[in-house]
């Protein structure tokens, strides 16, 4: 099989910038997803039936609609509906973040409900408010327990960033497509891109596992 990796070496800086965009997109969408997820998960656990139902609708909607559809809708339909111009990077961050937030919310809710109810009762008995108890007693323990599923979700977020190539965010997959299109060397370029994604995701997955092993005792009750 004839292989030629020269196009990769010739365009290393082009691909490096694309990798930077992938990392930026992943980090921003993870941040947004985490913030949304903590709010949603906490409110669903402690917010009462009405709040639980409303936010449950958001979670079920995001889980029922493919990420690609959410992404394309955010890029095309949202500007038409609301009369605002949305660039591809912003659309990607918001779509990925909101989609991820639903799954993070469920992981957060599972973590919060896994902490024994006695912890909350004890905190309230000591004179803490509910907000104080959640913030200082319940959430820290719950977050440690959530590390394994959160690690999985963040790894998925990095991989999902590649879907943003559909709306032409200049991330790694999209720029790899551009390079493959101009050089007609798809095997070399896509294999290299796959390897880079592995190098991004593997440390995240192993890292969160290692972190959980170190902190697991702090999350037990």
């Amino acid at each position, binding site marked *: 099989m004839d292989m030629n990796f020269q196009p990769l070496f010739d365009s290393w*800086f082009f691909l490096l910038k694309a990798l930077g965009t992938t990392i930026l997109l992943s980090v921003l969408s993870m941040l947004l997803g985490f913030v949304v997820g903590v709010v949603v998960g906490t409110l669903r656990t402690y917010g009462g039936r009405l709040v639980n139902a409303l936010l449950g609708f958001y979670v079920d909607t995001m889980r029922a609609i493919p990420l690609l559809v959410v992404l394309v809708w955010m890029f095309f339909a949202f500007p038409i509906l609301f009369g605002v111009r949305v660039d591809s990077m912003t659309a990607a961050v918001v779509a990925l973040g909101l989609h991820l937030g639903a799954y993070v919310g469920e992981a957060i809710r599972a973590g919060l409900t896994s902490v024994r109810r006695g912890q909350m009762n004890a905190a309230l008995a000591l004179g803490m408010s509910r907000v104080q108890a959640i913030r200082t007693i319940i959430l820290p323990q719950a977050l440690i327990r959530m590390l394994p599923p959160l690690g999985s979700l963040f790894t998925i977020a990095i991989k999902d960033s590649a879907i943003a190539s559909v709306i032409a965010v200049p991330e790694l997959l999209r720029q790899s497509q551009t390079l493959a299109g101009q050089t007609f060397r798809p095997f070399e370029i896509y294999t290299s891109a796959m390897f880079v994604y592995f190098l991004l995701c593997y440390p995240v997955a192993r890292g969160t596992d290692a972190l959980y092993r170190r902190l697991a005792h702090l999350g037990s009750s």
Partner: protein
Amino acid sequence: MGLTSVLRGMALSAALLLPFAASAETAVPAPGESPKIDQIKERGTLLVAAIGEFPWLPENTTGSGPQFSGPAWVLAEEYAKRLGVTIEVVPVSHETKVPILASGGADISIAPLAVTPQREEVVDFVVYSQSSLCLFGKGDNPKLANLKSVDDLNSEDITIAFFTGTPPENWAPERFPKAQLRGVAGSGANAPVEEIMAGRADVATIDYAAWPTLAKQVPGLISFPPGDACLQSQEMKTGVGLASDKADTKFHDWLQGVYDEIKDTVTAEEIRILKG
């Protein structure tokens, strides 16, 4: 007859047209005449939807320097200069290069677009080039061994691949009613080379201008029409241009007028890209 002859023909056309270039500059519509131009001037930027495609809008993949070159870029720069604004590139994919105009995400789409009746229903074109198609496949494919012409590909045991959402999707069923057709999602490439290399299709469509580069980069491929005849293919001969939304005809008229003034420069840039 080959690429050199094609380039000579284009250069001769450009030289013949030069004396007839309009001496008066196309006036920018006055405020209030074109809502799109008023919007561009107020914003201070010309939003151009772009995706690289050889030879009309090659993308610079070195990571430094201007992002694009080619005849479409020359036009975009001229439009921005005359409006007194800067260019802002809006990256698009093959799926989004036309719909972005309707959503207001771009003022013009300089992604090279083949003129088709379906596209003409939703956008206005400024045609600055021509294109035609060749088909290519592996030279060692036994199914292609005895085939000599494009007509020979119209056979039940031949699978033809093309990108969905592109003009061959409408052209191929009429041109090859007997063949198996395989539409695949655009990969950003000029042609679905992966379908041929993976053996999922026997032949695939490609712009004639991109064939020489493909033949050089991927040895062992053959074309239909064969060899240099591909460069003068008449298959799906169509105009190639940039697009604007249908809503503002004054804007389109101005775009067309500017192109008419500088068409020799635009053609010269295409020749430079093809030669390089």
